[in-house]
């Protein structure tokens, strides 16, 4: 369906969308340093996918610091070991990887995955929802949910740039906050319903254009993504698990990869996986968290496959709102904490390494005697990645994309 819209990008732009892009261009005029690595002939056409793990991933189980003498005692009942049939996968001799993540281990071995440990945003309370808002809004504190940092990143690119024109993809019926904002947002979710005929959508587009600018803009975006998905053969498969199941994670990743990998598709996308709030019976090498990590690992494989032609220009960044308590709680799970891990995966990642200023796990080394102390700011990592991938300057990053982070230097050398 929607074939009638299947002409080139410029032709398809509506007046309202031109206005949006015009506004972005105006912002660019004062904030952007016009020097882009990718603008040169034969330069990189980057792909950047952000995966938000909702519920607070336990970094100490995903990437256990088995070399730390404090680890095993803190993690009684769920600690992973170096040996045996369910051994964790070796990374650098100190850090290991959860055995449910063989794909990530393989990518790490090939130099295409880097793991940041003891990482967090600047948020130091323990509310999931505020923590996610800070992570996704890119603002210094909670309470700002008007736009997300990926959207402002896009709005900071020059309006004529094809990356800016192609919009940012928000996967899911409810798009993640990180992509929301003024720049064009495309939506996609694995289809679950029989599709309506295109004639109905055209009539509604006409009605909304006359009566309701908000619905009109949303429908326009939907129509564009629909056409894109159809051109790349992604329609027709319904059913499957949700974003808190291994199968759902794989399908969502495969779908997002199909759109982001397309020549005429968006270059930037965000999606969310759920279910990481492991308060009880978290499990060790097997169990609840292991199932979720296996799903995430399957998503990495789906990205690698779906983005194969552009894998060398791809960075997938996996982040979560905060970590979990260093010690297990009374119910063989972990409560809300602070420091955790972030993953950088893709052919454009300078990988095969751990990025960690390890704080240690002795009681006095923990944050508030309870959580892994954060020593790397996730926003500095994100700034480093997007500075290298998109050629954005420090001031733009510190003012627009992650406001109020002038003191937070982008981490250098994350991208090949």
């Amino acid at each position: 369906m929607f074939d009638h819209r299947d002409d080139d990008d410029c032709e398809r732009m509506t007046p309202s969308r031109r206005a949006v892009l015009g506004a972005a261009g105006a912002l660019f005029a004062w904030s952007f340093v016009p020097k882009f690595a990718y603008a040169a002939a034969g330069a990189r056409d980057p792909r950047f996918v952000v995966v938000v793990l909702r519920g607070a991933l336990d970094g100490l189980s995903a990437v256990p610091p088995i070399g730390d003498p404090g680890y095993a005692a803190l993690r009684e009942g769920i600690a992973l070991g170096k040996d045996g049939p369910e051994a964790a996968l070796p990374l650098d001799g100190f850090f290991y990887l959860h055995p449910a993540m063989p794909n990530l281990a393989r990518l790490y071995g090939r130099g295409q995955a880097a793991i940041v440990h003891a990482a967090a945003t600047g948020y130091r309370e323990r509310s999931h929802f505020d923590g996610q808002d800070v992570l996704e809004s890119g603002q210094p504190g909670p309470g700002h949910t008007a736009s997300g940092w990926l959207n402002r990143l896009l709005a900071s690119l020059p309006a004529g740039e094809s990356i800016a024109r192609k919009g940012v993809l928000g996967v899911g019926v409810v798009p993640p906050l990180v992509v929301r904002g003024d720049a064009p947002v495309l939506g996609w979710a694995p289809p679950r319903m029989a599709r309506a005929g295109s004639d109905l959508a055209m009539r509604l587009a006409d009605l909304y254009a006359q009566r309701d600018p908000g619905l009109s803009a949303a429908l326009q975006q939907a129509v564009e993504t629909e056409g894109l998905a159809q051109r790349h053969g992604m329609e027709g498969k319904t059913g499957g698990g949700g974003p808190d199941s291994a199968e759902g994670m794989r399908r969502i990743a495969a779908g997002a990869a199909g759109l982001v990998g397309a020549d005429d598709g968006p270059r930037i996308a965000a999606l969310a996986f759920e279910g990481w709030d492991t308060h009880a019976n978290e499990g060790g090498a097997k169990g609840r968290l292991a199932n979720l990590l296996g799903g995430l690992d399957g998503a990495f494989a789906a990205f690698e496959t779906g983005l194969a032609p552009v894998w060398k220009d791809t960075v997938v960044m996996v982040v979560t709102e905060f970590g979990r308590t260093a010690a297990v709680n009374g119910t063989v799970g972990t409560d809300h904490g602070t420091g955790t891990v972030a993953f950088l995966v893709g052919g454009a990642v300078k990988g095969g390494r751990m990025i960690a200023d390890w704080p240690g796990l002795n009681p006095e080394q923990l944050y508030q005697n309870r959580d892994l102390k954060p020593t790397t700011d996730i926003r500095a990592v994100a700034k480093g990645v997007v500075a290298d991938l998109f050629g954005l300057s420090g001031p733009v990053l510190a003012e627009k994309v992650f406001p109020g982070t002038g003191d937070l230097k982008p981490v250098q050398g994350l991208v090949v």
Partner: protein
Amino acid sequence: MAETGNLTAGGIALQRFGLGARPGQGEAMRREARDRLLAEVAAGSAPQPQGVPFPGVAEIGRALFAFADEQKREREAKSAAAPAASPESQGMPPQAEQGTAGPNPAGRSEMAQPAKPQPKEPALPFRTYRDEVKARVDLALAAETGLCERLTLFWSNHFCVSVAKSNIGRMMAGVYEREAIRPHVFGRFEDLLLAAESHPAMLDFLDNRESIGPNSPAGRRRGRGLNENFAREIMELHTLGVSGGYSQEDVTNLARILTGWTMAGRDGRLGFPGSFVFNPGLHEPGATPLLGRAYGQPDLAQGVAALTDLAHHPATAQFIATKLVRHFVADDPPSRLVELLAATFRRSEGDLPSVYRALINSDDAWKAPATKMRSPQEFLLASYRATGLKPNFGQILGPLAAMGQPFWQPPGPNGYADTNAAWASAEGLKTRIDVAAGWGRQAANAVPDPRGLADDILGPMLSAETRQAVARAESRPQAIALLLMSPEFQRR
């Protein structure tokens, strides 16, 4: 002209505070909108769904334990074969589980599950969920204005539990709404809070069944301890709000205070299996401070006192007022209206009908433009009310799951989102169109004249453009879909 204006305002109000018109309700209802809404508050009791599979938690507890025993026996009997997802292991089953465990929901491709030689009656927890959903939807479709049902949806989402948590959650989400929410929708917030926090469905959902006082008899014996999930969400999501002025220490202390609040086990030692009990063997002994006050009461009374004080905390009044105004009026809640409701909440000591009356009587609430998108659940209920059809369970679950709001299955303990950013997205709108197309096909025979239906349901709210789009539709199903997707039907 003034008359038309009042009728339009009445029509918007019935969508804002209720579930939209049923055929034939039309003008009389719009003319008397405010009186009818206030009369529903004055009546002061929420009806209960009929035809539910189990009357209460005790019956569900018995059935649940019997079901677990039966599952265990079956597993043992065929222990050689690979067991298909045992109920005990389903800590967090996949979100779309109901799609495969239950009957094929309407709208899903028949090709999606060709391999399974079913169709077998689904397992007890799913059956129970199915029948509870059907019963509560039937009630909402029959309601006069739908105000009470909207308030029930609001509080059920504020104090949410999830069927995805466990078999207890799947079996009890419906009875939780019937026992903990409905009786207090027109009561005092304090009673609503206590009923919600002491329901086994909530204690299971937020892990309090497993939280053990480190110095309790069980804590000393087993070396297990606190789980602070329940305590944190009570303060962050149910009462004070995240900026309500509590600390990490308060979270841990409230967790101590609430140790022992649990569900009676199968042995029935402390109470009827499946029902709420206080287990002193798990309770952290001694006086515990919370928000600068010491709670030295013994046993259950300690938690009741702490929750009662939280219910009357000024931050709670502010938090509840803000959420109510955001839900019913605007994503950015007008501060004057929030202040009015918060003051009413404080002055009446959390008397909810007083708060609702202040809202419904306020011109700020009455005159605000209809900007909010109906949530998927509201959209489904309003659509079936408008067409007069009765959906079966698959026709309820399929579309709601696709649109991202199945009953009692929010993505987290903060419930479903309540803003346009969540529900008016590109992908969300596209899914609504698919859903509406299906409903148009279903209703085509029941609605001989879609133009007449548009006039009847929307009255003076119906725009010339929508009227024309409906009139010019290529078919009756398309005309109905256009009506359901029109801005004046979508927004309230």
